[in-house]
């Protein structure tokens, strides 16, 4: 294989980088740190409380960093005024300081060089690294046009590089959070209600009387506000119904657990719709007033009886009827949770549509205990010249596919980066900010091919994630605890603003992303788009437009506003949904016009062969994807993942608790590392379960390296949703290898 871009391990540079940091360390790294403070010596110590919002996951809870007189971050707690966390962070937020103290952090800019015929990284100054990037970007703009630069991003930093790319002349900005995650859900809800459920979701779990979770494992995904509200719902005696092939934490707290056969969710949803309509249980007044296409829907689901669904889902008909009745009894305070990671089987928009239709039949949208109407605060844009209009954009990489994709699809941008005949929209350069594509994205061969074909690959991160090994330039970003960032403006039950400001100065040679983007912009002659010397000026200007000031926000951290509009549809109002007709689309003309089923249908998906088990993956409450696997404050809670195996299956294979096995998938791909067996009654016999985010294979992640197994390396069968390009990842089957597989020599 052509290896213009050979994978480089950053570890060899550790010593030099540490030396560079000498003299500016703000925190004693490593095991010696806590000892000096132990014996309860800090009791009574005065702390400075510095506002922040968390960056360990996308929920972005506002909190306080407690900084000691010596300038150490002692702890982080939630901001009691923030409705997203109510003063209570989750374990990852509480342990967020581990991102800052991580000894493996990127410390200085690195540039790829060839020494004695070997590719390696050498430390570089910021000027050198930024000059190089600007030079390359200029070349790309001249040779291929600025549209040939793309950005892959996740988290707060993406905003500044988006600004950079827009000023440069490209709108090829993409994130795995769409096609690999919430895209199908958002598309399904937009097609039905005219808008998505946003993030944080506008789900009224707090006041619900009946909460239905289908593949959503609240409590294991620590979407903080939702976890807190589910707890309130339990206190309030709400009925919880959980559909999951695994006894999830949420399932264990539910009145009804429906241990469904994986991949058959749509059949269950259709039979619930059938029962609601044919047993006359749906919310007639609401449907008559706000929805259209009911008669078509009624005809469509005529034969989808619980008896029909039983044969597919293994859920007993009476259980399907009883749960449908529970939902109807609580209507409209019933919430069929839309979920978040919904790219499962390639027909995911349709499944999300079925969930949306169920919510519509129960009158959930716009009613207390269902889905509330959000309200937010619009933060004005800091003035900048108008962005140039790109000649083409990510839509042109679709070539007629995925007609209803409202956001860019990572995989088509990756595909467009591979030179091929007929590829008229060639991408030549990437900036990757805050997303470890190598672990996040399925279809690794395509990804590797694309990365080998690029003229420029810049990676901006705080940690030496796998993706950094493929970069031409690696830029070390400071952590969220060391920087200002854009205001967090949340549209939810109540509009809120939150501020993030540095608790301490950036360690090592690290810099905030806004600074990095501005520096590259200036070198490209785009300085007018970054017309400020410090992000503080932008924040202060924006806050002043809103009648606040940076000074005040630095004191309060969170500003809550009273709502101006009702949170629920008023009984006598003439509420218009954001669809073309203003009505909820039970029958979707838009889908029909684009050649898709206007109403969801059940399609049977492939089942595992003998000796294979469906690979189901999910979250653990103390980890965020692969980004916390090296966080020393969290790893002791869960150092590695385990493969959950039903005791019957374990007996069949002679697997013992805590034994290590390798997993091999249906395409013969064997996991890089072995994984511990967890024998448990909590999982079906036709499936295995692992927590996503482990099995790092990059040695510079000195703790995370080699711990557990990475699910995405075993996801080689991707079922793409034709409607919006979501990459369905639940159609992979694995078997166990008890002995270390021999590495096959490549001839």
């Amino acid at each position, binding site marked *: 294989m052509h290896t213009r871009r050979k994978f480089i391990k950053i570890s060899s540079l550790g010593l030099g980088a540490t030396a560079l940091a000498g003299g500016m360390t703000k925190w004693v790294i490593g095991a010696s740190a806590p000892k000096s403070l*132990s014996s309860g010596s800090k009791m009574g110590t005065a702390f400075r409380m510095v506002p922040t919002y968390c960056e360990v996951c996308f929920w972005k809870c506002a909190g306080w960093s407690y900084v000691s007189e010596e300038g150490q971050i002692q702890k982080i707690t939630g901001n009691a005024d923030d409705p997203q966390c109510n003063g209570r*962070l989750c374990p990852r937020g509480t342990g967020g300081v581990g991102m800052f103290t991580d000894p493996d952090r990127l410390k200085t800019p690195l540039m790829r060089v060839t020494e004695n015929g070997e590719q390696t990284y050498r430390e570089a100054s910021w000027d050198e690294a930024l000059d190089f990037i600007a030079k390359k970007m200029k070349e790309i703009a001249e040779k291929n046009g600025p549209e040939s630069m793309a950005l892959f991003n996740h988290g707060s930093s993406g905003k500044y590089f988006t600004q950079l790319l827009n000023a440069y002349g490209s709108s090829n900005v993409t994130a795995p959070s769409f096609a690999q995650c919430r895209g199908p859900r958002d598309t399904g809800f937009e097609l039905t209600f005219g808008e998505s459920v946003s993030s944080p979701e506008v789900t009224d779990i707090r006041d619900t009387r009946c909460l239905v979770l289908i593949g959503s494992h609240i409590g294991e995904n620590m979407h903080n506000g939702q976890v807190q509200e589910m707890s309130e719902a339990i206190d309030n005696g709400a009925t919880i119904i959980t559909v999951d092939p695994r006894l999830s934490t949420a399932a264990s707290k539910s009145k009804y657990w429906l241990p469904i056969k994986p991949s058959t969710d749509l059949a269950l949803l259709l039979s619930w719709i059938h029962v609601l309509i044919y047993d006359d249980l749906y919310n007639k007044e609401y449907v008559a007033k706000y929805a259209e296409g009911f008669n078509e829907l009624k005809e469509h689901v005529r034969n989808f009886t619980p008896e029909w669904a039983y044969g597919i889902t293994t859920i007993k008909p009476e259980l399907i009827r009883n749960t449908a009745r529970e939902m109807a009894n609580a209507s409209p305070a019933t919430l069929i949770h839309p979920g978040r990671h919904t790219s499962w089987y390639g027909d995911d928009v349709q499944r999300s549509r079925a969930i949306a239709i169920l919510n519509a039949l129960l009158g959930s949208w716009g009613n207390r205990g269902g889905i509330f109407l959000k309200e937010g605060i619009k933060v004005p844009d800091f003035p900048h010249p108008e962005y140039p209009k790109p000649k083409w954009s990510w839509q042109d990489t679709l070539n007629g596919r995925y007609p209803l994709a409202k956001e860019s699809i990572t995989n088509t941008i990756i595909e467009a980066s591979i030179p091929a005949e007929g590829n008229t929209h060639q991408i030549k350069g990437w900036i990757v900010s805050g997303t470890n594509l190598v672990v996040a994205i399925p279809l690794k061969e395509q990804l590797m091919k694309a990365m080998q074909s690029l003229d420029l690959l810049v990676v901006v991160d705080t940690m030496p994630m796998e993706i950094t090994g493929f970069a031409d330039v690696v830029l070390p970003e400071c952590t969220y605890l060391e920087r200002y960032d854009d205001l967090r403006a949340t549209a939810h039950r109540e509009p809120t603003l939150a501020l993030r400001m540095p608790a301490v100065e950036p360690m090592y040679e690290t810099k905030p992303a806004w600074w990095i983007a501005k520096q590259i912009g200036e070198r490209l002659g785009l300085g007018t788009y970054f017309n400020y010397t410090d992000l503080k000026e932008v924040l202060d200007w924006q806050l002043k437009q809103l009648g606040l000031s940076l000074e005040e926000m630095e004191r309060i951290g969170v500003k809550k506003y009273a709502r101006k509009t009702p949170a629920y549809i008023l009984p006598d109002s003439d509420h218009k949904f954001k669809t073309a007709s203003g009505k909820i689309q039970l029958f979707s003309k838009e889908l029909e016009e684009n050649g898709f089923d206007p109403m969801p249908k059940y399609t049977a998906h492939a089942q595992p062969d003998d000796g294979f088990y469906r690979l189901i993956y999910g979250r653990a409450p103390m980890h965020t994807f692969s980004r916390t696997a090296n966080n020393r404050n969290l790893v002791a809670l869960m150092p590695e993942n385990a493969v959950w195996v039903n005791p019957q299956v374990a007996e069949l294979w002679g697997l013992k608790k805590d034994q290590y096995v390798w997993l091999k998938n249906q395409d013969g791909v064997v996991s890089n590392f072995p994984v511990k067996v967890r024998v448990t009654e909590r999982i079906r016999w036709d499936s295995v379960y692992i927590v996503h985010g482990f099995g790092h294979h990059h040695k510079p992640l000195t703790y995370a390296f080699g711990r557990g197994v990475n699910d995405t390396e075993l996801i080689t069968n991707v079922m793409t949703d034709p409607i919006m390009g979501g990459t369905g990842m639940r159609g992979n089957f694995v078997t166990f290898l008890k002995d270390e597989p021999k590495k096959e020599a490549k001839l």
Partner: protein
Amino acid sequence: MRYAMAIDTRKCVGCSDCVVACQTENNVPVGFCRDWVVEVVDGTYPNVSIELRTERCNHCDNSPCVRCCPTGASHIEDGGIVLVEHNKCIGCGACIQACPYDARYSHPDGYVDKCTFCIHRVREGKNPACVSVCPTSCMSFGDLDDPNSKIVNVLKNRKFKSLAPEAGTKPQIFYLI
């Protein structure tokens, strides 16, 4: 005054935030903990149930750790909080053996360490760190002698159990079931 804690197992999701918060609040060295989470699975698929609960020192009324301590380092403070005075502790570990809840550990600095109910916070009128961060609010902390306290109210209205009652230690952590 009698401090106690009630933990609602119906609400706990086992996220371990209590563990992390305790570690950062009390400078517990990485790799050690004063509180932890237990998951008990019962039944066979699909008739399975789980109990999740956070555990720590039970601050027992009849505390074997205090009785066996040769130096008096382990002692009972006002409000029934069981503490270890680090300067008096010789690290012999007798209390670790005596505790039926495995709530104590040897600190690398040579003494035995355990949950203090965050006495430094409680004296300031705050909840222990674990209680204050819990996303599910499944923990209540308070004074059993105060009839108006939340904990008394909770224990009046809910079924509860304590751990290893057969040990006769009279634990002061109650699990709502």
